[in-house]
């Protein structure tokens, strides 16, 4: 039974579905209003959950009304930054974009974002929808949403207690994408062997982004790597060079599998923010924007004027001192952050780092990942390391075991209380230098709340 069909570009829905949709939307709006006026939170999940109970097909009914289609963004790291950049590019081109900007990337979060732009008659007005989607939710929402574009950023180990394993996730993705229409466009990271392999085996149109700049190669493969084995045959991959984690230029000596040819020249584009990570994020958004038809001048201008989302390389100024918050929620992310901090340390722009480790649900309750981070490198570059958070002593132990005789006098300061930790870290930061704060997700919200004197809603 087809409940929705497209005729002359107009979406028609049968009456019962229409009524349920209207009730669902108005109920969701009421809930949002109550939550926000009572300052109970961001209302980024609950309205969608309630609405889905009233109209279980809500995701499908709303996403089909997006004029030019849905863009789905998936990956372990960089979803929020890339989505925000892409959104700005599309808006600067003059399109109306709906986006789950609160970062609520499970099913109910997606529904909530779409409802926000829907009127009481169930009509959604948007040219594009950009939906950041949790890696495990992709298989569940793909049949309902049928995106026009899917952007696969990267696959790293994230929260083991929730997700299990990279191989399993990529197999599920590839199974879920396979039945999508042939005009679906998949944009994937060529430098990630798992995603290169995934892209090479799809029947849809696939475009690749990646780096082609050997000057950025790391000296050695970091410990926190997930996939240095050929996703096709299981043989050890041969790397000409690694850019970060397992992202690099590679080939398989056994079966001939190799890095996909990229459709964008990384050396020709500037990047947003700092760090190689954001170079990848920029390339991904740029390639997608080009496909959609955003003018090159608009893309360039957007990159130049882009500002960070909270906690993603965001900069604040506290009593004349610069503070940079760099969300660090998994080994790969933290390694890359340490690399960035060390470059700034080397240039004399920083000496103190504050690390805040929490173990709440959004952080992952398993903190063992900190032992896969090369904290030795942060210690080796000297200065002060202040640690705090729910698992302050776990972090302190990690730093203690990173100290060797040649640690440049790196000083470890342990502060259970977060406000005290921030105050101490600021005291140790001379005017003119930047304090770098590396928090996990919930710690980032706390840090930011304390620094700006207001809680995030």
């Amino acid at each position: 039974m087809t409940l929705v069909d497209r005729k002359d570009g107009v979406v028609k829905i049968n009456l019962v579905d229409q009524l349920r949709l209207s009730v669902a939307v108005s109920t969701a709006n009421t809930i949002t209003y109550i939550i926000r006026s009572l300052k109970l939170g961001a209302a980024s999940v609950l309205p969608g959950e309630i609405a889905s109970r009233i109209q279980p097909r809500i995701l499908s009914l709303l996403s089909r009304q997006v004029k030019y289609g849905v863009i789905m963004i998936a990956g372990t790291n960089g979803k929020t930054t890339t989505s925000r950049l892409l959104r700005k590019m599309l808006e600067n081109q003059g399109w109306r974009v709906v986006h789950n900007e609160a970062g609520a990337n499970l099913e109910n979060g997606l529904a909530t974002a779409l409802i926000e732009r829907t009127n009481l008659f169930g009509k959604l007005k948007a040219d594009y929808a950009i939906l950041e989607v949790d890696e495990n939710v992709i298989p569940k929402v793909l049949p309902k949403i049928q995106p026009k574009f899917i952007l696969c950023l990267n696959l790293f180990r994230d929260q083991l207690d929730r997700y299990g394993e990279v191989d399993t996730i990529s197999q599920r993705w590839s199974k879920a994408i396979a039945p999508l229409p042939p005009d679906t466009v998949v944009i994937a990271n060529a430098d990630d062997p798992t995603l290169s392999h995934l892209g090479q085996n799809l029947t849809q149109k696939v475009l690749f982004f990646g780096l082609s700049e050997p000057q950025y190669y790391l000296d050695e493969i970091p410990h926190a790597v997930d996939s240095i084995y050929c996703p096709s045959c299981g043989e050890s991959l041969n790397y000409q060079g690694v850019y970060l984690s397992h992202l690099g230029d590679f080939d398989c000596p056994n079966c001939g599998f190799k890095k996909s040819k990229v459709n964008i020249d990384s050396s020709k584009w500037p990047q947003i923010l700092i760090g190689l990570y954001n170079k990848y994020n920029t390339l991904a958004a740029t390639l997608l924007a080009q496909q959609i038809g955003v003018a090159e001048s608009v893309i360039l201008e957007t990159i130049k004027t882009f500002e960070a989302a909270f906690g993603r390389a965001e900069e604040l100024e506290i009593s004349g001192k610069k503070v940079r918050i760099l969300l660090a929620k998994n080994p790969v992310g933290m390694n890359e952050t340490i690399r960035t901090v060390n470059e700034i340390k080397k240039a004399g722009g920083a000496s103190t780092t504050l690390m805040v480790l929490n173990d709440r649900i959004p952080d992952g309750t398993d903190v063992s990942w900190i032992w896969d981070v090369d904290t030795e490198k942060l210690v080796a570059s000297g200065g002060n390391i202040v640690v705090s958070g729910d698992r302050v002593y776990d972090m302190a132990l990690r730093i203690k075991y990173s100290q060797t005789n040649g640690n440049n006098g790196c000083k470890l300061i342990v502060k259970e209380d977060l406000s005290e930790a921030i105050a101490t870290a600021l005291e140790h930061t001379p005017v003119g230098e930047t304090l770098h704060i590396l928090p996990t997700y919930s710690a980032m919200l706390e840090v930011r709340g304390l620094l700006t004197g207001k809680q995030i809603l």
Partner: protein
Amino acid sequence: MNNQQMELKIGWLYPTLMSTYGDRGNVICIQQRAQWHGFNVQVIPLDLQASVTEIHQVDLLVGGGAQDRQQEIVMRDLKGAKATALREKIEAGTPGVFTCGAPQLLGHYYEPALGQRIEGLGLFDFVSKHPGIDAKRCIGNVIFEITASKLAEELTALLGKPPVIIGFENHGGRTYLGKVEALGKVISGYGNNGEDGMEGAFYHNAIATYSHGPVLPKNPFLADWLIKTALQQKYQTNVELQLLDDRLAMQAREAMFKKLGVSELAA
């Protein structure tokens, strides 16, 4: 013979394949502590390319967790002469700590959620099974008391109280012991299977446990026991370790006991 004249060779099993859960922390912990105690230390990665000779020369073994697919690659490699070498080491009393995926490989077999049964080395008399892709993983902080007689005795003598381990478990597979001795009894958490209250296994001087976290930094006495046992075995002489500053580890332990509502003394 003084400490500077002794060398500890740590054999790290499949570092590129079996390092999913921060278990490298065990290697770092043993390596650093041995150095702080004044010994020379060498870490020998026993990866796919490693030879039988390399396995034979190590004094202590460390193995970590793996994804199911990586585990299969390991088992394809760990056959014939290599398997025999590892078996001989453990039978001869070489100490070792094997967490998560590693112990599954040392038992008779492991049945993953998907795919075929993976045959193990059969060194430890236990079997491991994954109850199915939709089954709940055993995840959370875990506290257990070491009960394996020889180890419990030696650690109690060292600590002056029963040895209690704090760790974090995160495993889909469940392990069921045969005749092998359990490592300990669970105070808080799931342990081997969430049913019989037992955690891990102990055979000769080899420790198999689901407790990662990694296990050693917050239980430094266990790291020191491994170092001491390995060197005594190697040099056939009594080895004395000085006390190290473990205040941070003690604070980390206290914080976890408090969080989980367990009193260490009552444990």
